[in-house]
């Protein structure tokens, strides 16, 4: 199918064209045709997800093509996140709550 590009234009752009624009904008190249095809597939899925987020969002946020549009959710989390934070902060004194005042 075809997807509308981020920039307003008279005609919707084909997915491959949008992907080429993404590659130019963010200077992306891939090692082989198969890798290119895989990234194009991920890119298409991400655009779908961005569109879904756009429909679900209750605020004013805009979702769409970003520098991370050719990464899977797992790759994105692995590259840019830190490990998941623990249940509580180690070796940091607990928060002071008024209820505890006056207790020994």
């Amino acid at each position: 199918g075809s997807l509308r590009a981020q920039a307003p234009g008279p005609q919707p752009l084909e997915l491959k064209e949008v992907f080429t624009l993404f590659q130019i904008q963010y200077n992306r190249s891939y090692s082989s045709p198969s890798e290119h095809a895989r990234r194009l597939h991920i890119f298409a899925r991400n655009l779908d997800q961005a569109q879904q987020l756009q429909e679900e969002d209750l605020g004013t946020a805009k979702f769409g093509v970003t520098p991370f549009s050719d990464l899977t959710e797992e790759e994105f989390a692995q590259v840019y996140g830190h490990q998941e934070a623990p249940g509580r902060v180690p070796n940091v004194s607990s928060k002071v709550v008024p209820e505890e005042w006056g207790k020994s």
Partner: protein
Amino acid sequence: VPSTCDWRKWAEVTKTVRNQNNCKCCWAMAAAGNIEALWGIKHRQSVEVSVQELLDCNRCGNGCNGGFVWDAFITVLNNSGLASEKDYPFRGDDKAQKCQAKKHKNVAWIQDFIMLMDNEQAIASHLATHGPITVTINMKLLQHYQEGVIRATPTTCNPNLVDHSVLLMGFGKTKSVARMPAEASQGGALTRPRRSTPYWILKNSWGPKWGEKGYFRMHRGSNACGITKYPLTARVDKPAKQLSVSCPP
């Protein structure tokens, strides 16, 4: 708590938006940003501190392989401060190098660090009266974010799975948009009325080309993406005038 607050407007608060690239060091960049901002506010002097020192001298010694904001503050306390970004620049490579802290002069230091209450009103109050703080959020929605205020729900962004540290710089409200009956009578699409949305202003570490010039906004008042889970900040104070004391005879 004032209705708006934006520490980006404070002259001595560092304006540079860092880029962590492929290095998992958001925790170090958020902590460095916190110290720089507080130093700028308290000392009226702009500084840029070394993120690489936080990576190399971290007690876990795992460089770009992740860490926590509290580890960064512990490193600053252990090293009695931080060198400048200029003297000890960011490399962002995968291997942690030997700690070079002793080779360089410290340009900023902290007295302590604290975790604030998990309450957005308390966080706003502290932010408005002391300066920017670090928070750790679920970054899932940021992969596709371009601009505007993210209003997440626990379903779209689990507040318990937080994995990205950023710097909370301020807060505000969007302007409310009224329904425009003239547009409807002319056959145009009816603009949905929109109430003003309270938001947080957050500074990311993915470079100035990402989001809103490196920043993003999230809804305030709904614990969006777990923003209240780990609100941490260093304490940067000017040394108090030491009162002379003498031991009672």
